[in-house]
């Protein structure tokens, strides 16, 4: 990994309290050498984007299990664009039906991990991105 550690914001948007996945991913990425900031629960898209910018992160990973993904991901992308911060990578995970994945990727979500995804896939995805 480069001199400057890659910074990742792990966020729980919306009202959903199921944070097991978010916390496990946060620890996994921390152990893989990333600098991880975890927002905690009930973050609005506005709060997540504001934290991402003020913490100067390279990527945002969000976890949604409540079915609100088709609102939350597009809204975060929209806000990142508005703030001129769409260089920040957005990825996510949760209970996201197959047919919802292509439209979200089209909008700019870099990767989506669904139930059962190995941790190594998520770490692998990021290390590929930040290899050079």
């Amino acid at each position, binding site marked *: 990994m480069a001199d400057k550690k890659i910074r990742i914001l792990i966020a729980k948007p919306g*009202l*959903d309290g199921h944070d097991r996945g978010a*916390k*496990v991913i946060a620890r996994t990425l921390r152990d893989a050498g990333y600098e991880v900031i975890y927002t905690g*629960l009930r973050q609005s898209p506005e709060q997540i984007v504001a934290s991402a910018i003020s913490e100067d992160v390279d990527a945002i990973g969000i976890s949604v299990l409540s*079915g609100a993904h088709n609102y939350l991901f597009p809204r975060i992308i929209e806000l990142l664009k508005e703030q001129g911060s769409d260089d920040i990578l957005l990825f996510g995970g949760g209970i996201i*039906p197959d047919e919802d994945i292509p439209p979200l990727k089209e909008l700019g979500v870099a990767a989506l991990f669904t139930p*059962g995804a190995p*941790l190594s896939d998520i770490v692998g995805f990021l290390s590929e991105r930040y290899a050079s």
Partner: protein
Amino acid sequence: MGNKQQWTETTLAKSLARGKERKEFKSTSGVPLERLATPEDLHEDYDTALGYPGQYPFTRGVQPTMYRGRLWTMRQYAGFATAEESNKRYKYLLSQGQTGLSIAFDLPTQIGYDSDDPLATGEIGRVGVAIDSTKDMEILFDGIPMDKVSTSMTINAPAVVLLAFYIAAAEKQGVTADKLNGTTQNDILKEYAARGTYIFPPAPSMRLVTNLFGYCSANTPLWNTISISGYHMREAGCSAAQEIAFTLADGIAYVEAAINAGMDVDDFAGRLAFFFASHNNLLEEVAKFRAARRLWAKIMKERFHAKKERSMMLRFHTQTAGCTLTAQQPDNNIVRVAVQSLAAVMGGTQSLHTNSKDEALALPTEESVRIALRTQQIIGYESGVADTIDPLAGSYYVEDLTNKLQAKAEEYIARIDDIGGAVKAVEVGFIQREITDSAYEYQKAVEVKDQIVVGQNEFMVEKVPVGALHKIDPATADLQIKKVTEVRKNRNQDNVKEKLAALRAAATDADTNLMPYILDCARIYCTEGEICNELRAVFGEYRATEVL
């Protein structure tokens, strides 16, 4: 030298010299598992350690005849979209032989926001039904006689409000509060620890919990005032022993809070109920339920000096473990649910929810819910395990494991006592950290295949398309927002203002029971958001300290 030792040194040693065992065997709680339990592993006196069903320490069950009298209540947790939609699902479930209702509320309802609150955007009707006022509750129970059905409500921070809506809706049906039978989850501590639908800080939240106890002990004698829940902490990752310990530690905190509020332990303890998960490890789970029952009885008798036997009974609901369901090869989940249900029944549960095979992917379809319900019915009517009481008692292994789980749970409870009790343990993040540690360890084990998850990290197939999934109609949100706007328009506004002001004034006095004030608001169609906002103004909101 005992015979077991002799066997270990001779026959077993020879076999192990020829070939090792598959792996090191440990329970989810980290307890090394006995290769072979024998009478030598049991040192207890039957009458004091096990006793008889319906008698202290209730190891063998809380009722004298258990399922020979009546099978457990088959209670499927359900709710989605609008009250109209959910009402249809409830009627379907009742027509299929389900014996109790269990309401799933959407997240805005669980956190005290009306459907037209900006914070509700995207979440309306998603994980449960949206209920904004008594009006929605009336629709939810349209055509379902509220004096005949028992209803469990998964509602915590605003439990007082939803119970008030329920009572007000029943009054509309001509059913008085004393006829109502059911449960409010009303367990705020595990919300801070694991589930996340808190609103207010711990002190006023504990007041609302005990306000509900107080109101119900005088007005709704059949109502279970709380369902002290280990389920969500287990789902968040803790072990079986931690599940017992954290749940009973929360129970201790509620009993203390009610006693401090001036109640006599025997006036409310008999209405406390519990809620556990049932996982794949069948024998550990059976042992867990038995250990929890025996330990709670001991706590109530020795710590709180309860006099009535009823106060010492741990009566519990069980749900099969959602986190064990795989999105891959979803049909395999039917088998997992069957194993977990068997554990719950052989562990003596009072009611059971069986998860549906497609729940790692979406809310369940009607078809998959039916299979889940049929699983319970097959266990109840065909398997024979319900025909005798506590069928695994006396198994050297299960008794040994019951003892070990109880001992491990007691160690944890002693640690929580040292911290200053469950409220404090949650405030300092102890319970959250323990849960996250266990979850991370488990995931690492899955990653390196120390833990096999069939179909997910072993025995995989190429992804196959799954059948139809349940979909929430996108029009739900607009419809619900329209309904709550209508409700606000068609009521006596002066009356609303007056009752909300009275509630706020009452909230400022910590010794006042708020339930009657909230009921006044519910009867005149104040919305949940309005009621909760009055309380937010006085109590403030909880901000979690994040524990990674």
